[in-house]
């Protein structure tokens, strides 16, 4: 007879790891138009979305620009570093 008082959370046990965020940080060097351009050309965001995220970076100090598996977020962070932006990855807060 199986344990009836134990609830198995299938969704949790089938998800490979926790999702991660790619965060871009404000820096005083990069032009606002450059940051928007990077968001458009690398992530393929619309002008409006790129502008919105750029302004969030500028005014709040950082913005989450992508969420997903760790390996994918690592690729995004390397790409951001390639463009000269300050970028980190962090586990999505639970």
């Amino acid at each position, binding site marked *: 007879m199986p344990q009836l008082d134990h609830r198995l959370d299938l969704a949790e046990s089938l998800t490979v790891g926790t999702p991660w965020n790619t965060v871009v940080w404000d820096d005083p060097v990069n032009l606002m138009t450059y940051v928007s351009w990077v968001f458009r050309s690398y992530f393929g965001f619309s002008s409006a979305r790129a502008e919105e995220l750029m302004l969030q970076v500028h005014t709040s100090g950082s913005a989450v620009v992508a969420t997903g598996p760790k390996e994918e977020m*690592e690729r995004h962070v390397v790409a951001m570093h390639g463009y000269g932006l300050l970028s980190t990855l962090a586990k999505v807060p639970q």
Partner: protein
Amino acid sequence: MRAFDATPAGDLLAEFETQEVALFIDLVQQIIGLLERVKEGEADVEPTVLARLFPDAYTDDPSAADEFRRFTLDDLIDRKVENARGVLASFDVAQARRTADGEVRLVRLDREHAMYWLGTLTDLRLVLATSLGIATVSDEGAVETPDAEYVESLYDWFGFAQGSLLEALEEVEGIGGS
């Protein structure tokens, strides 16, 4: 320098004075030299420059950040060197034009070379900003060195060039008005 402008054919065109070209090429070659020294593991590169060109990928885990940097450094350097060489190549093919004030160079970029330029202008500004002490929001700023004023004028000049290139690029891509 005359700012970048979009041509009807969809290229980006700017005009540089001969002395500006020489100065620009010299700094780009210095960036390539710096990147190659980093790749060869030479320890004479200013740590603050390294930290800004190859930032931490993890804010609260220094060993994970170090490991990440070890895995990604070579590819990042290759990409930055490729950008810089792309910039040098566009000066190689720049047409000369005589004006009343002397000779100028017409730098004409397609989209691929514009991307090389945007990357290298960023790296140049990051390196200059680091030496000025203004590269991150937590920097104290305004380091007093004998050539700070000169470095700042270069920093502003590259910012002007990059800003005008982005504006011209947006015009070509039809983003400016949307």
